[in-house]
């Protein structure tokens, strides 16, 4: 097809030319479904500046039209393209090919903690179920829309946790559930324990006034006690959220205060009688 790409200043070089910086890489991609599957070998072109997701897309377009993968924004903002690259949970769109040697074999597998649907796509419904188990923001009584006043330094703690793109890499890597299906019912996982912390630190959340102690429920209903702060979740977080240090440890401290503080215990007793 003839084009007038020169007119639109930023258009590409004509298609078909292969730049000198490109090379062929060796990929192994897990393919299969609920009935099982295995690693399949591919040799595929790689160009300068590309990320692993680009290579997966090239496989789809040229060698495996039905290769299943989730993705949306391709800019690390939506958290859809989570998978494991050489065994490490990562976003496919934020993993540059330049971090590998040209001779490396790059192995791409689906998230291990969740059941496979097909190829690189897993069933992440566990996370949506856990989201429903966390009681929502409790709006303060007597404050109408437009009347909320909060200081920047007070919202910043929760804002850090709201950077979460729900890629579920932390849920995937957390050793409490990674190879322990039996822990799933009792454990919300780092993402949703962090959600409890976020609401607990929200300057205007009125849960406590409405009879809900988020700290205690973190321990009693969301399995905070299972976490032994190995920080695996923090290490894989593509947003760099300090999940363990800033959310889980403070939540543990607050929950512990609740449990052993006799005054809090007494206060709770009295409130319950009302």
């Amino acid at each position, binding site marked *: 097809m003839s084009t007038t790409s020169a007119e639109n200043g930023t258009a590409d070089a004509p298609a078909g030319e292969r730049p000198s910086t490109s090379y062929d890489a060796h990929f192994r991609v897990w393919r299969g479904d609920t009935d099982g599957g295995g690693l399949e070998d591919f040799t595929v072109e790689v160009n300068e*500046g590309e990320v692993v997701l680009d290579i997966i897309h090239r496989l789809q377009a040229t060698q495996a039209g039905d290769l299943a993968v989730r993705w949306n924004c*391709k800019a690390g903002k939506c958290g859809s393209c989570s998978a494991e690259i050489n065994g490490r949970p990562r976003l496919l769109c934020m993993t540059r090919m330049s971090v590998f040697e040209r001779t490396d074999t790059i192995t791409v597998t689906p998230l291990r903690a969740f059941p496979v649907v097909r190829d690189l796509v897993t069933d992440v419904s566990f996370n949506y179920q856990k989201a429903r188990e966390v009681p929502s923001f409790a709006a303060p009584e007597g404050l109408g829309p437009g009347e909320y006043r*909060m200081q920047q330094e007070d919202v910043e703690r929760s804002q850090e946790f709201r950077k979460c793109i729900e890629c579920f890499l932390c849920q995937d890597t957390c050793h409490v559930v990674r190879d322990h299906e039996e822990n799933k019912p009792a454990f919300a996982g780092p993402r949703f324990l962090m959600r409890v912390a976020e609401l607990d630190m929200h300057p205007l959340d009125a849960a406590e006034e409405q009879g809900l102690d988020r700290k205690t429920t973190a321990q009693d209903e969301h399995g905070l006690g299972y976490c032994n702060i190995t920080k695996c979740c923090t290490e894989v977080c593509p947003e760099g959220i300090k999940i363990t240090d800033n959310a889980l440890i403070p939540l543990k401290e607050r929950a512990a205060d609740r449990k052993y503080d006799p005054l809090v215990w007494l206060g709770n007793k009295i409130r319950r009688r009302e």
Partner: protein
Amino acid sequence: MTQVERRQWDVVIVGAGGAGLRAAIEAREQGLRTAIICKSLFGKAHTVMAEGGIAASMGNVNEGDNWQVHFRDTMRGGKFLNHWRMAELHAKEAPDRVWELETWGALFDRTKDGRISQRNFGGHEYPRLAHVGDRTGLELIRTLQQKIVSLQQEDFKETGDHESHLKVFQECTVTRVLKDGDRVSGVFCYERETGRFFVVEAPSVVLATGGIGKSFKVTSNSWEYTGDGHALALLAGASLINMEFVQFHPTGMVWPPSVKGILVTESVRGDGGVLRNSDGKRFMFDYVPDVFKEKYAESEEEADGWYEDPAKHRRPPELLPRDEVARAINSEVKAGRGTPHGGVFLDVSTRMSADVIKRRLPSMHHQFKELADVDITAQPMEVGPTCHYVMGGVDVDPDTGEALGVPGLFAAGEVSGGMHGSNRLGGNSLSDLLVFGRRAGLYAARHAESFAAGERPLVADAEIDRAAAEALRPFTPEEVAEGGTPENPYTIHQQLQQSMNDLVGIIRRDEEMARALESLAELRERARHAGVEGHRQFNPGWHLAIDLRNMLLVSECVARAALNRTESRGGHTRDDYPAMDREWRRANLVCTLTDPDATSGAGAGAAGQISLRRREMPPIRADLLELFEKEELIKYLTDEELTA
């Protein structure tokens, strides 16, 4: 006959971005059983990509702001082609929609006195955008998502079922809106995971599917943006307006090639970033058009002074509306003053400290560092225009969002047309989603309630059979002629993107657009032979083959309308008609399907599938016109309109 599961709901929302979720919340709060159908996982919609903020004249940073000023800015940005009623409703209701988010748990950045902070943006007279760093869209989606979960928690307490009144069918795609006579009766869908078909019967359907950017090669849009809602509306008998107006955001990444087109937020300029060409010149001073001359600075000194003291200085020209900045960048590159990778330089490192940049623009810092090895606290970014947004969309009633001529079909957000005229201002999209999402949800609920039990429109088996056959066609494509090769949907998609990018891109001319139409006819023909491998379970090749129908339809609308409008305005720039023409201001180009009974989107040959007609816009209400000075109106309106 195809056996498919039928489910009954009151209101169906197609799409789970800002508009869809806000519509769903409203319909559910009106007491109606509401189903949301979305192509991706719940919470992943393209709205998360919105960075800068939500425009709403709360007046938290500058008390001079109010809805009238916001209305004026919106009309100017759209070069007065906006539907004035939509621009009015939007400006009036945006503050309430933002404040409401706080009561659902949103945490915006704050002013010193604890209110919602507001930042400057292109085309907005005052700091107006409520924001959360540069990830405002994520905050919006998460807040709406969590509000929906909280409604489901309430329903669980009542009924023991989280999904009794509000259910998200995630990773499902709608391929047809179904009708009973003239009235909407439901939607036909497939589930991506299994490939299974199902029908949702409902008297009200809200389209909230976003835009069409995936028809262009260089785009900030995700794979979902295949114009589904635009095409569904056309196929259901609705019309599209303003399809010639496509916004090329001035600042997308240009390097490395694999990230080309990814958005660089306008906040970079709102917070003081300057644009320079390869000679180091701040070129935007040379590109201030006449209609904006009085409002923008003429020297670097004056422009720099504005950041400290906006009352005494005029705005820097980097903050002109997006269409102006995109054209300027395009011209600089074309004149040979571009960067090594074919963009221009955008530099924020000279005005702000590294700490401030990391706090105010964290995603941009991260994005450039991770994807391009550029540290924006010390180095300039290379940027160039990228296809970002379509101003055109479903022709709707401005108050209710109901598609004209199709009772029960509603549209909100990017898929609807009129609100933004020929060019959208940054920040006006998130507010549009909330204002018109709520309205569409409300009126969709009322429409559904208007039917007595047993009186609802019905879904006929024959219609289901037709929709199922159409969706399955990629598995049994038409045979290619002897000697020909079977077509690959990915290849057709790539050629469509290249064609639209090159021939109906940021700068347009007659013979190129005519060639685009020929190329679309050829691609349409080839799409009939596009087959897919494998089976129906989570098969992206199949999904793309289905989406191609939609992209081919909307691309034809864009090309046909662009060829017809012989002037330049907003997101439609013609080399052969470079001036804005006051006569054209009053005209909407309306696209409809030529043959509504055609069973396939393919076919129709070179004549195309789209008919175009010109329609006069309603005159702007007198009290709204009075918000402008006469000298300004003369630039836009005809003498006849001014004396009327």
